[in-house]
């Protein structure tokens, strides 16, 4: 009991760090429940990006002068922080991209289209993926003749793990899966999936967009060969993302962007490439974004990811208990919060999710409605759309109470 208390977050203190949470929406307190789309940013992160532009803006890796040296030091410092955050063996395994989407496309291009994948090779995905972990693999299928296969889910939204036994074959080269679903909140057993991939000689690609912000991650113990996530969902700025790669897998990957920074020597007839990770960071990178992400990582590290997870489990448990007390509301995804992150997809009988989101908006509550960029998953459930509330470090049971009152209001309007 006392141990659980010790791991909990000081939410009022955290809220004080987020300037946006103090504004009003349509005259009401802003209750932000859409962190799965993008998180809010603490003052520390906002200040760090401003500070870069105000005090030491210069391009990285090129300048001889002190200013450039400082910018490079901070940029590379951010890489080290991210590496430590996910327990990578070396900062050289951390590539800065613009987003999860770009990171996954880099793998699909560099390891799929241009890499070792041959016609007839198989790629095993799942039906619960975000579009950004579907479409890049469609490219590999369409341009290289790779065969795509998908693991299904059960009705509670858990992967049907036994299907991997049949779907992974000698021809499987890539097994790709999200660590955490952005609709169901399902937390997938990456370690087990990576093990099965490796037994077949395949690499395991992990979409950690919804995991890195909310769960402690240890890429070594997970056994991920590639792992992608976005800064903007984890308190950091937009326009900065990360691709982690196992060194051997990165060496087999071709760069996506050719240009400055990624080369060693360029002649008119040929070019040779820079070392990893610079090889994959063609052009001037998002320096301010990387520095901001480094500070976001500091912020989360100070809170401790175990405490973040424990807090979100508690809020999610409370939200599930409360929402089940309202008749006519359905939820999707696992019920056991040990299997579920702070994502709550729901529908209200007789009310379209759009109308739910509009009515909640008038109450100052931000939730998402729609297919959440997971149309194959929605088809699996035969749903055109759902509403979705998602929780983060600045949300607490008060926010859940406001949401529940809002849901009752929706039902009143449509009674």
């Amino acid at each position: 009991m006392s141990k659980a208390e010790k791991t909990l977050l000081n939410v009022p203190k955290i809220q004080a760090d987020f300037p946006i949470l103090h504004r009003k929406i349509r005259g009401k307190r802003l209750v932000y429940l859409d962190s799965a789309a993008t998180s809010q940013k603490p003052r520390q992160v906002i200040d760090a990006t401003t500070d870069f532009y105000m005090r030491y803006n210069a391009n990285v890796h090129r300048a001889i002068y002190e200013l450039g040296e400082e910018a490079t030091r901070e940029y590379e410092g951010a890489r080290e922080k991210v590496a430590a955050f996910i327990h990578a063996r070396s900062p050289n395994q951390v590539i800065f991209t613009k987003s999860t989407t770009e990171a996954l496309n880099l793998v699909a291009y560099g390891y799929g289209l241009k890499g070792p994948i041959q016609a007839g090779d198989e790629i095993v995905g799942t039906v619960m993926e975000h579009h950004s972990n579907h479409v890049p693999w469609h490219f590999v299928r369409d341009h290289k003749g790779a065969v795509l296969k998908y693991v299904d889910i059960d009705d509670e939204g858990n992967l049907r793990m036994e299907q991997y036994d049949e779907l992974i074959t000698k021809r499987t080269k890539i097994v790709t899966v999200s660590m955490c679903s952005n609709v169901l909140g399902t937390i997938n057993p990456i370690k087990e999936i990576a093990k099965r991939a490796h037994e077949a000689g395949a690499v395991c690609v992990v979409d950690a967009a919804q995991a890195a912000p909310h769960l402690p991650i240890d890429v070594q113990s997970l056994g991920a060969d590639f792992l992608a996530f976005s800064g903007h969902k984890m308190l950091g700025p937009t326009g900065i993302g990360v691709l982690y790669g196992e060194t051997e897998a990165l060496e087999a990957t071709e760069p996506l962007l050719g240009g400055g920074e990624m080369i060693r020597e360029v002649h008119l007839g040929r070019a040779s490439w820079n070392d990893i990770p610079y090889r994959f960071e063609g052009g001037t990178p998002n320096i301010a974004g990387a520095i901001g992400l480094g500070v976001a990582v500091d912020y989360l590290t100070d809170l401790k990811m175990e405490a973040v997870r424990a807090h979100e489990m508690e809020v999610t448990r409370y939200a599930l208990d409360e929402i089940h007390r309202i008749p006519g509301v359905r939820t999707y995804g696992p019920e056991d919060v040990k299997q579920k992150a702070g994502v709550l997809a729901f529908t209200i009988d007789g009310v379209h999710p759009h109308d739910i989101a509009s009515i909640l908006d008038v109450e100052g509550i931000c939730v998402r409605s729609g297919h959440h960029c997971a149309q194959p998953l929605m088809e699996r459930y035969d749903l055109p759309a759902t509403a979705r509330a998602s929780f983060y470090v600045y949300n607490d049971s008060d926010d859940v109470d406001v949401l529940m009152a809002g849901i009752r209001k929706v039902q009143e309007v449509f009674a």
Partner: protein
Amino acid sequence: MADLRELYQETILDHSKKPRNFHEIAEADASAVGHNPLCGDRVTVYVRLRDDTIADIAFVGQGCAISKASASLMTDAVKGKSRVQAHQLFQLFHRMVTGKPGDPVNTAGLGKLAVLSGVSEFPVRVKCASLAWHTLEAALESKKEIVSLE
């Protein structure tokens, strides 16, 4: 300030729960499918023409309360009108729902459609309110093409 009751007036709720002219027309002269992929709203509009007049109109589909009510109200509003009149009505309607939030709304000439004026306070819902109208326009366009082919 934007009020919930303005967006979800009784009439709108009534039309969304009990949409008028909510059926297919087997021998339609024109029809079109409208789709808003962002929210999954889908509507099919069927029209029967007598010369240049919309003699009958109906729709089927799924969507939010605003899109359903708007489709239902539209079918009532344009039945018996000429194509040109229907098009003019759409222009007036479009002007009403796309007005800037906070600005006075012009509901002149819109009759019952004026109940949707609250949409202008919720710009993200304009697409919901105009989906059926765009679909009607597409249906009437396609008819024109067929006619010109004959």
